[in-house]
């Protein structure tokens, strides 16, 4: 690892000003991706600004039709939260399937979303559930947040503080795990609310994405039969030693059908 300095601010304002003051600062929000990257010398930040002790950045609350999760809330906490389990069980299930127990005890939802790994689980939930990402300076709708591989709408130094998840009528997350990493080879979140259906797919492309054709078909008839093979063209999907783009395209259809079947109950 290269050398760096550390800063452990207590407030969002302090975190921001430390970031601005640093030559090449990097927020640390759990570190389950960042630390392995640093170990491999693939990044060289001048300063790590640890968000762990920033007040008010952790916790889960439910109000009416929304579940709000603060950015530094760990995966374990989301998975075990009774309000999440009751309101959006698919989100609790997703959180409980990230990495492994040890990773879930450290990793945070804000860190995961800000990193936007193409194979991460959370982006699928954020996008399918039509969540709003609250930052230190604005609110960003999920549809505008994930902009590309490891890229988001976050500006330099912009900090996620909270994510608002509207509670759907029904939702389900189905993941086909990479056998080596247990990341999503294909992960599919299907969410239904007020005649609206959103299908978000992670692991399969360079960035999490929705599929309009599947959503239309499911809005017409929210049933597994609505999803036909070949609805997703393989052309733009990832291809690697674990799965070709054709296989990923096929898996998406299968996972969406299974997610819908589970959501229908």
């Amino acid at each position, binding site marked *: *690892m290269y050398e760096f300095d550390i800063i452990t601010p207590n407030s969002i304002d302090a975190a921001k000003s430390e970031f601005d003051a640093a030559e090449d600062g990097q927020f640390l929000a759990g570190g389950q991706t960042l630390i392995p990257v640093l170990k*491999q010398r693939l990044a060289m930040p001048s300063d790590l600004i640890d968000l762990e002790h920033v007040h008010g950045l952790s916790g889960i609350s439910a109000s009416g039709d929304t579940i709000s999760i603060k950015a530094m809330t760990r995966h374990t906490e989301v998975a075990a939260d009774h309000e999440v389990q009751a309101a959006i069980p698919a989100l609790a299930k997703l959180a409980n399937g990230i990495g492994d127990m040890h990773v879930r005890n450290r990793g945070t939802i804000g860190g995961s979303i800000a990193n936007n790994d193409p194979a991460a689980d959370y982006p699928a939930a954020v996008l399918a559930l039509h969540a709003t990402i609250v930052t230190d300076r604005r609110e960003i709708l999920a549809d505008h947040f994930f902009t590309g591989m490891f890229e988001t709408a976050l500006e330099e130094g912009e900090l996620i503080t909270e994510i608002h998840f509207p509670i759907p009528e029904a939702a389900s997350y189905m993941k*086909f795990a990479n*056998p*080596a990493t247990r990341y999503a080879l294909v992960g599919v979140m299907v969410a239904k609310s007020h005649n609206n259906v959103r299908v978000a797919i992670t692991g399969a492309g360079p960035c999490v994405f929705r599929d309009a054709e599947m959503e239309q078909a499911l809005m017409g008839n929210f049933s597994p039969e609505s999803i036909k093979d070949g609805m997703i063209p393989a052309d733009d999907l990832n291809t690697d*030693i*674990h*799965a070709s783009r054709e*296989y990923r395209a096929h898996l998406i259809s*299968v996972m969406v059908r299974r997610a819908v079947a589970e959501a229908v109950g």
Partner: protein
Amino acid sequence: MDTTNITNGIGKSQERREDFRFLTGAGSYIDDMNLDGQAYATVLRSPEAHADVSSIDITEALALDGVLAIITGEDWKVAGYNPIPTKSAVRKAIDGSDLKEPPHHPLAIDRVRYVGQPVALVVAESIDVCKDAMELIDVDYDSLPSVSHQSEAIKDGAPQIWDIAPNNICLDFELGDQKAQKKAFSEADHIVTLNLVNNRVTAVPIEPRGALASYDAGTGKYTLWNASQNIHAGRDTIADAVLGIGKENLHHIAPDVGGGFGVKNGVYPEPILILHATKLLERPVKWFNDRSESFLSDTHGRDQVSTVQLALDKDGTFRGLRTETVGNLGAFCATVGPFTPTGGSSRTQGGPYRFDAIYYTAIAPFTNTCPLDPYRGAGRPEGSYQMDRIIDYAAAQLGMDPIELRRKNLIPTEDLPMKSPMGLDIDCGNFPEVFEQTIAMSDRDGYDARVQKSAAAGKKRGFGISMYLECTGGGPKEEAKVSFREDGKIDLSVGSSSTGMGHETAFAQILAGHLGLEIDDVVFRQADTEATAIGGGHGGSRGLEVGGSAVLQTSREIVEAGKKIAAHKFDVDADKVEFSEGHFHVPGSNHTMTMREAIDAQNDPDMLPDDMEPGALNISSVFERGIISIPNGGHAVEVEVDPETGTIKVDGYWVMDDFGTIINPMLADGQVMGGVAQGLGQALMENIVYDDGGQLVTGSLMDYAMPRADDMPRMVIGYYEDAPTAKNLLGVKGAGEAGCVGAPPAIVNAVCDALKDFGVHHIDMPLTPERVWRAIEDAKAS
């Protein structure tokens, strides 16, 4: 040999004595050891598969604060050391010419030939400084065309890796009677042909390789603590063959070793490099691989492509078998490398089945990949896969029942002992009985109901079986040295080495059991060139067969010597004295003396007969086995396949093994279950992949999939114990590798059985979900 009179202590699931330290974090592995004043070393590895090294500039790196030395191929050339020799037991090609052995220097000299090949050793005050320095070394590579796959390497026009090896061929090989095979084929009703792949895998012991070296300028002696399975042979190669320092000047020790599986058997560049560095700097030097470096530099295993042909009659009788293999060696001849696809893969061809004739040939080419060397089984898993896969494939092609086909062709007991068509001495066993017991234990009665249940969930269930034949014993000689301390402790030193197999327990169990002493008093020492004069290390499932036999032999000699002491006390002839359950006694008299009393007496001249010196019970004995033993057994597997995704769930696993006498069933079970897991890994997920440019695609645990707890089925294991072998003193047949020999064919057979309705009859390993899905889709389309 006399396999009777193996007394108490045998057959008992004795808990392991080493476990307390392992469970409390008190084990001492290489990276847990540190010496005063120690420096650290890392290895700069080639990023190129094949390239000329036109220059290496170390100026900037050397100037970095904390850097102590940087050693390059140029330094190595100047030092004049010899290359690392191969010890392959097969050394001649078919035409009698020598195998082509390119010079394997620990550092690349002028040219690199695989990604990961050591280019420079950096020694510094800390690992971080080493890594900083590596980034400052400027190496100019002039890329050359490379070849990664063995089938490509032997084609005309392929990039040539070594001038001495035209068409990249190191050697070719044949075994068996070609004429008889051709005759059998011409007479048979059917010839079934199957091309198959034994995928390239790597052992991944959870402890990476590492070593710690020190040098005493006063005595000129080196000490090397090394995470190695083969201490004595390694010392000889490193000290005598490579460095020329004389083996008496290298004390080679393996501390606790975190798994080996063959991959820690060979002689590697890095320990040699740090021996050079420790003398140069007169400071201890430690090196420890990262996991990602392990993928690049630990020898890989398997990687054979084969064409297998089975000739059989209409009634299913096997007549002949023909196997042609191309086995990848990587860029160099590793320690045993050329042996694996040749001799190692040939001996068990045909398995426990009867044939008129078998003919095996192999070509072993070099490629621009990491060298290959034995990995658990080293040739026998390949042979077992070829044999038991083609049986199921032939059954599918000819509309036969694979279970009946096996039943019909197993070598009957009345044929034993016999010499197999491959020259293997099969002395004992009962293949038909082991087969029937395998079937009987695998809950066939409940199978149809489980098939229905799977079908109702949209899944396909299948059953598969394999009948493996093993040959074990590894290095033939072993020493066991016993000495009794005055405080009652018993020092037991053995030259074999355990990397998790539990010798500290099993060997102590044999010694204490035989002598009627307390196992807790035994102080065990292994894998240390100063503890025993010779040592065969670990390899070929030899621990118990050869090491255990040596312990028993020494124990027996102690008893014989003890009888003389007892006879002297009783004033009778020694041949009148008998020994049982820890007591010397004379039948028909009330003379009695315990072993402990005899031990106490051994240092008192008054208690000894005239022809005995004090310390006469402190005995070291070397056991030498005859021919290798023949473990065998059956694996039965049930799988459930999700045809929509291609996912395989291994849902039932049964093993019946003939390991002869079972010394400690708990340890034997552990060996089998661990072996099955590795076989399952090879069958379903593990795969080392190089791209066409020679880059390693599976370079970390992020890409190389390994079985986890939720990938494994519950395994049921039984032992057929009615056929102890007379080839060693314990009647045992090696248990260490059998699990991963029998597993791949049984699992693939079960999957193909599940998919037979689709018309899928073969899929190459690893059977990843995508491969299974594609096989189904392709079958549907055709």
